[in-house]
């Protein structure tokens, strides 16, 4: 499934938290960006830069303090259920239900996304095939290895064929083969026309995969552009160096 125009649109997003220890602080401070269908936008930043908070607002788990965000035309505040229906979201905090099997997990999400009952079984089998999960489809998720769980999680994000994928550090905990498979998966989904928002702090992954990159620091976007554009802007070749130059300029 793909969408025309900006599948993800974020305008002046602000999120203020009132923390008991730190007092009031702006975790996200006026962030704006867009991501089109068939594009991978990388969100890069150190821990605490505001990546996860931004993605949680986009996934409707958190409400923004200010600003507006839409996913496939659905407003994240006014139509949260519509947003979740158009979104495949994966992060380190979106674990699998441990006592369900991969097959049950996929069917459960298919039903909650209101796929027709007669299509669910076929869709589940298709995803099990696609992610090479047939052999472990009847084993409880709590018994699976990290890589197997990640494959099930990726399959879970695609059950309802969403036009937008948001992946918060999807390669965390994966070995080299698992990481390569995840990268290949994202490239394939981009080719299908999906908009992919991809957060990472692994620079080579971003260099390899992202069409455009937005660099976040302390809740603000320091720069957005293609890798080539950022090279020109900073006079550095590698993303890690680009990152340091931008940080130093703040």
């Amino acid at each position, binding site marked *: 499934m793909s969408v025309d125009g900006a599948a993800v649109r974020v305008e002046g997003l602000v999120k203020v938290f009132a923390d008991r220890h730190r007092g009031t602080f702006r975790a996200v401070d006026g962030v704006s960006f867009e991501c089109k269908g068939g594009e991978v936008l990388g969100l890069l930043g150190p821990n605490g830069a505001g990546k996860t908070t931004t993605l*949680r607002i986009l*996934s*409707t*788990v*958190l*409400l923004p*303090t200010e600003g507006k965000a839409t996913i496939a035309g659905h407003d994240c505040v006014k139509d949260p*259920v519509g947003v*979740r*229906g158009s*979104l495949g*979201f994966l*992060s*380190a*905090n*979106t*674990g*699998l*239900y*441990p*006592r*369900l099997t991969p097959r*049950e997990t996929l069917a*459960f*999400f298919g*039903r*909650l*996304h*209101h*796929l*027709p*009952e007669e299509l669910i079984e076929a869709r589940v089998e298709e995803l099990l095939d696609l992610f090479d999960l047939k052999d472990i489809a009847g084993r*409880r998720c709590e018994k699976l290895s990290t890589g197997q769980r990640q494959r099930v999680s990726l399959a879970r994000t695609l059950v*309802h064929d969403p036009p937008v994928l948001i992946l918060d550090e999807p390669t965390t905990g994966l070995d080299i083969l698992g990481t390569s498979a995840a990268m290949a998966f994202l490239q394939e989904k981009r080719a299908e026309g999906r908009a992919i928002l991809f957060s990472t702090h692994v620079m080579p992954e971003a260099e390899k995969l992202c069409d455009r990159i937005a660099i976040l620091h302390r809740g603000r976007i320091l720069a957005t552009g293609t890798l080539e554009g950022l090279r020109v802007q900073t006079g550095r070749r590698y993303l890690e160096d680009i990152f340091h130059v931008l940080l130093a300029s703040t």
Partner: protein
Amino acid sequence: MPRGSGADALRIFRMEALAAARDRHTLLYAVLVPLLVYPLLFFGMAQWIVYRRGVEERTVVRVTLLEGALAPPLEGRLQEVTGLRIEKETAPEGLLPIERAQALFAGERADIALAKAEGPGLSLYYDSGSELSLSGRRRVERALESCREKSRTMAATERGLDAGALEAIALRKEDLASAEETGRRVLGAMLPIFLLLMSVSGAFYLAVDVTAGEKERKTAETTLLLPVPGRAVFLGKFLAVLGAGGLACALNLGSMLIASRAFFEGTAAGLSVRLPAASVALVLLVALLFLALAASLLLGVALLARSFREGQSYATPLFTLLILLPILASQPGTRLTGGTALVPVVNATLAMREALEGSIQTGPFLLALLALAAQGALGFAFAQRLHAQAALHLAEESVPFSRILEFLRPKEGKA
């Protein structure tokens, strides 16, 4: 696929129920314990009684007859009683019988002593601190009572009289309650406590598991992202917890009825443990209304915790309260009135008792049902309000009870 919050809630309920059915702790507290507690308890009690009887029969009690205590026929009757070893003692001069008995007990030479009383009759000396002495007392009393009865009957027969006529006041006791009524009164006194305890136990583990346990397993955010309204998610979880508690209650009631029939009917206890279907239905209705409140409170409180273990600590004081109140409400003389019908948990205990006894007072009973429904609805609203706060699901630290009001106010970040 059917759409709407109700259908989505049922899908979530089915998923939680499936997961719970694969969890051995939930199975233990919602199925096995409620089902097996009575058969095991009654079997254990029966075995204990048989064992104690056997022990008593095998134990020999030393009975010392102080000089001239018994006439030869009575002495002969005592000699025939199994487990009594009769010894005679000629006492040293100058000691009172009680002093002689004390000396015998101190020297561990007797468990029971019998002496001729100063007036008519006998004095029986025993040591209430000794199990052996108490057992001996029971056996001697039974033997002497039997002799007394026999002597009276013989004396009456010799004089051509009815033995009963020799009683100063002949009292015949007749219980007008049927065996079934007696059985239901016993059930009414005991069962509400057990049923409410089992209901809360059945709900407790799952309530903590689907809230604090979710955070620990890192599936709380997965659940927040489900493409359905938050109220459907909460309703699904609530139904699963309610179902676990209800299942525990139904199994416990069924187990009690079957086990008590098997163990008590036809025994000397004279109980008939049968309940009409209408009473069973009313008991289950009361249990479900009570569970609506209990499940909501457990879900709300456990949501404040970060891990399963902390969730148990948070919910345990509430659990204790939910099982202490039925015990207090079960005191004899406490009745369902316009006042007690309004007190949470107490109303459930007393309404359940009336349904079990078959002594329902329509007005207070209906008031109790209404109060239970209202309390359950309030509890549900409280827990749903907390559940709607995404900050509670995403919190990396436990939230102290003192901050609970903060989360009951409308604020940003709804689940």
